């Protein structure tokens, strides 16, 4: 038992102290300035004798930490990091040669052919856009650019510009054709960043499960994807009021794959004239979403779904979010302004509130 605690400790530390955006302004600056950060740590854990390996990379515009324990840890991590970098290059909007950049340059006359992964992810994104009535929308990127969230210099844009830009934020302007081809209408720009990390997490987990391992913990800029063969894992959810603390913990049963994905404007936001603007957009009016919600954490086996729904539920506000979560059977923790954690009743007994937070179940 002691060996388990001992070996866990460094993973917990290595992951949790590296918030992707703990200091908002600097976070965004570093977000762009850091080209690549790689750390290799090959360790034969002294106290357990189990092979354990952990690597941190800069991918998907954030820090990604892959940690594995077990016989194949070395090989597994190497192959997973290669896959991660490959997927990142494919899906990044910033990379001019990526498939997404080609898609954004396409037109009705010249549709592009996408790889299987990209096409699948795009169609999945469209499916969730439809289900959430556009609250999650992969075409929100131009709006993010306009507000300066993607450039690192956020500001309140001109309202006429917002009106103009929000017209092109519409997932229905992306057209999927047969034979894995697709095109976008003029002015529309797709960014799968809002769903891509969840998807890449799923793919990596699938790949890693094929190896002989006893524990896998993936941290993609705070999106957690975890699995352990023999012991329960405890996954903390960061407090949106103080990112050095947690608001609750979630217990993931052994031998289950779990993804824990949080959305909130507590790490990427800016203030102008005393008003706080977060990075999650309300696609209806083109302004940052402003509801009673502080953060939303979606839990489930499917990280792609979790990533899409966490964004959509956050943009809705707690009332509508509960309705949507119940309708689509989403297990989630809604963290509201008054210190209440609205937790899906299906998660009863697995979520434990930290001091200062009270749990109320719904559904």
């Amino acid at each position, binding site marked *: 038992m002691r060996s388990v605690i001992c070996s866990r400790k460094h993973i*917990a530390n290595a992951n949790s102290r590296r*918030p992707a955006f703990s200091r908002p302004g600097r976070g965004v600056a570093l977000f762009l300035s*850091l080209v690549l950060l790689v750390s290799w740590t090959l360790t034969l854990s002294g106290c357990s004798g189990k092979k354990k390996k952990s690597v941190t990379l800069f991918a998907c515009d954030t820090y990604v930490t892959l940690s594995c324990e077990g016989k194949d840890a070395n090989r597994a991590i190497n192959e997973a990091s290669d896959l991660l970098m490959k997927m990142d290059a494919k899906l990044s909007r910033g990379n001019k040669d990526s498939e997404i950049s080609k898609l954004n340059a396409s037109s009705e006359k010249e549709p592009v052919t996408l790889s299987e992964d990209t096409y699948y992810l795009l169609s999945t994104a469209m499916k969730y856009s439809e289900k959430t009535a556009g609250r999650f929308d992969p075409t929100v990127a131009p709006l993010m650019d306009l507000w300066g969230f993607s450039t690192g210099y956020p500001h309140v844009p001109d309202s006429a510009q917002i009106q103009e830009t929000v017209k092109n934020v519409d997932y229905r302007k992306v057209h999927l054709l047969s034979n894995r081809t697709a095109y976008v209408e003029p002015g529309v720009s797709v960014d799968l960043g809002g769903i891509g990390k969840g998807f890449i997490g799923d793919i990596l987990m699938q790949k890693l499960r094929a190896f002989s391992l006893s524990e896998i913990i993936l941290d993609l800029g*705070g999106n957690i994807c975890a699995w352990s063969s023999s012991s329960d894992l405890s996954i903390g959810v*960061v407090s949106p009021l103080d990112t050095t603390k947690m608001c609750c913990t979630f217990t993931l049963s052994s031998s289950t794959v779990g993804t824990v994905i949080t959305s909130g404007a507590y790490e990427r936001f800016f203030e102008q004239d005393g008003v706080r603007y977060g990075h999650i957009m309300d696609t209806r009016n083109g302004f940052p979403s402003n509801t009673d919600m502080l953060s939303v954490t979606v839990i489930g086996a499917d990280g792609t779904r979790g990533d899409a729904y966490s964004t959509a539920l956050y943009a809705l506000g707690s009332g509508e979010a509960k309705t949507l979560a119940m309708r689509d059977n989403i297990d989630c923790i809604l963290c509201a302004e008054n210190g209440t954690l609205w937790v899906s009743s299906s998660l009863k007994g697995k979520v434990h509130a930290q001091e200062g937070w009270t749990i109320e179940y719904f559904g």
Partner: protein
Amino acid sequence: MRKKDGQSNTSVKKLPPRNFRFSSGDVFIIGAIVLVCAILIGGIFFHRRAHQGDARYVRITQDGKVLLEMDLAEFSDPMEYRIDSERGHMIIFISSEKVYIKESSCTDKICVDQGDLTAPGDGAICLPNRVVVQIVSGGSEKDDPSGKVDVIAR
């Protein structure tokens, strides 16, 4: 006095009084500086001694953001940790015995001069790269929210 003779015609402004002899106020200033420094050094010294036997962690931060924090015991195989950022690049050597900044793209190389870091409290700073490398003791669970959990979602 001399000051008045020399300057009263050329300038109307008043120069500060001159005192070139070591005076009572100087003793007070030196005493205050020595006292404050002694307290600080003593505090650092005792803090170090109190954490001597603890597990040692290496913590690397850039712009106040923690890039790496790991138990030194994990580095039975030494590694070179690279930082490639817009500000510059660095190579930090980490082994279970010591940590040091091996290379830095900065001009002053003050960080490289800081040498081996071995005990909790040791650290090296590279201001141009805004990187701080520290050895910290492991007994800090109380301010560490991750103490009880395996990983934190954010």
